[in-house]
């Protein structure tokens, strides 16, 4: 990568790193991959509750970003755009899962549905289990998984990843005010769920 990465300095501002990746600089792109892969993994894991699918999502989103980078008009919009790619991939996976469950009605898939139609993470499947010593955290994760996917994505993007209402709105194709409403409903539902769980 030395042939393309000559003069590459990881202390560059992110806009300049993105611009160089747009010009095909592999060292700059690798820096972006390393910067974002774990963030995207945390998002995808909390969306999908499946390590393999989360890793596939990370990989597919970052490769899509490599292919789409030359078309990105504003280098400073890279993070919001990348989160949008990853979130939409997660939502696609969940849509496929639910149509699979409806069409095939595999009892193994259905048994993880609660009466409320919510998907619950199978016990012990959470790699973060060891660290989740806090009952509050465990309750939050459990209730989070009962939220509809779009609402869950909205909450995760805001509360776990600090995205702006504008970026979340662009991802979920709703207005910033719509994001505010969706977050309020998500919080309401989570607090209700957590109070029942305790």
């Amino acid at each position, binding site marked *: 990568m030395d*042939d*393309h990465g*000559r*003069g590459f*300095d990881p202390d560059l*501002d992110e*806009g*300049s790193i993105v*611009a*160089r990746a*747009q*010009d*095909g600089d*592999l060292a700059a*792109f*690798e820096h972006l*991959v*390393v910067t974002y*892969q*774990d963030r*995207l*993994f*945390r998002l995808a*894991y*909390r969306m999908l509750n499946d390590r393999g699918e*989360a*890793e596939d999502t*990370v*990989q597919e989103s*970052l*490769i899509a970003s*490599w292919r789409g980078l*030359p078309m990105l008009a504003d*280098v400073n919009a890279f993070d919001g755009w990348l989160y949008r790619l990853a979130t939409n991939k997660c939502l696609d996976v969940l849509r496929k899962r639910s149509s699979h469950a409806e069409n095939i009605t595999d009892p193994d898939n259905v048994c993880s549905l609660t009466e409320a139609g919510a998907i619950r993470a199978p016990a012990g499947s959470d*790699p*973060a289990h*060891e*660290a*989740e010593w*806090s009952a*509050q*955290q465990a*309750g*939050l*994760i459990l209730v989070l998984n009962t939220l509809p996917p779009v609402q869950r994505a909205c909450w995760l993007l805001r*509360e*776990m990843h600090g995205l702006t209402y504008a970026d979340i709105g662009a991802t979920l194709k709703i207005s910033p*005010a*719509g994001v*505010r*409403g969706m*977050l*309020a*409903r998500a*919080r*309401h539902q989570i*607090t*209700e769920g*957590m*109070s029942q769980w305790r």
Partner: protein
Amino acid sequence: MALGDIPRLGCGRSIDRIWATIDQPPTAHEQQCEQCQTARARLSGLNEATRSLRESDLRNPSLKAHPGVTNAIMDIARAEIRRSKRIRLHSTVNGTTEISEQALSSIIRFAATAVPGIHSRRCRIEVRSTADNLSATDNLSATDNLSATDNPSENTGTTASTGPHLIVNLRVAAATGIDIPRTVDALRHQIRNAIPAGVGITAGTINITVEDLYDV
């Protein structure tokens, strides 16, 4: 979206409003209203659980992508490396000499690292053939070291006397607070020296656009 979409308590307060002020002391109404007190207690529990989940997810080594993911992504990126256009440096009866825009850009970016307060970004290079723009090239050929073309040997024989006229369009980000005209002049000077030193042709026109400022 209408405000009606935001859940409200029986007393009329919206959940959103209580959430927004969760870190502040309760208002007079909230101190007296049982529904508000319950909502505040629950939201403050959520606030704590959210913060604790965020921090523990960040620290949790098992919530990281497998190290192989980086390599898998980079392998694909390398395989799909965008072929940049080629710039003809030299043309002889025996053949042509071209350089990729990417290789030339890398020389330009490396030159730019010598100028403090400048982060080079995208770089586009065009070339005007000498036949089209002989006079323009002549005007810019003061530092041209290819003009002495006294090597007519068969293998390296050269026909061009001044080489192509390069037009470099470099976009950069500048550190806030720098003297932009002076810095950009220094940058242009660096590039003007680096191109002949690196590839043996004259730099031609160097257009620099400061498209962004970065904080230092």
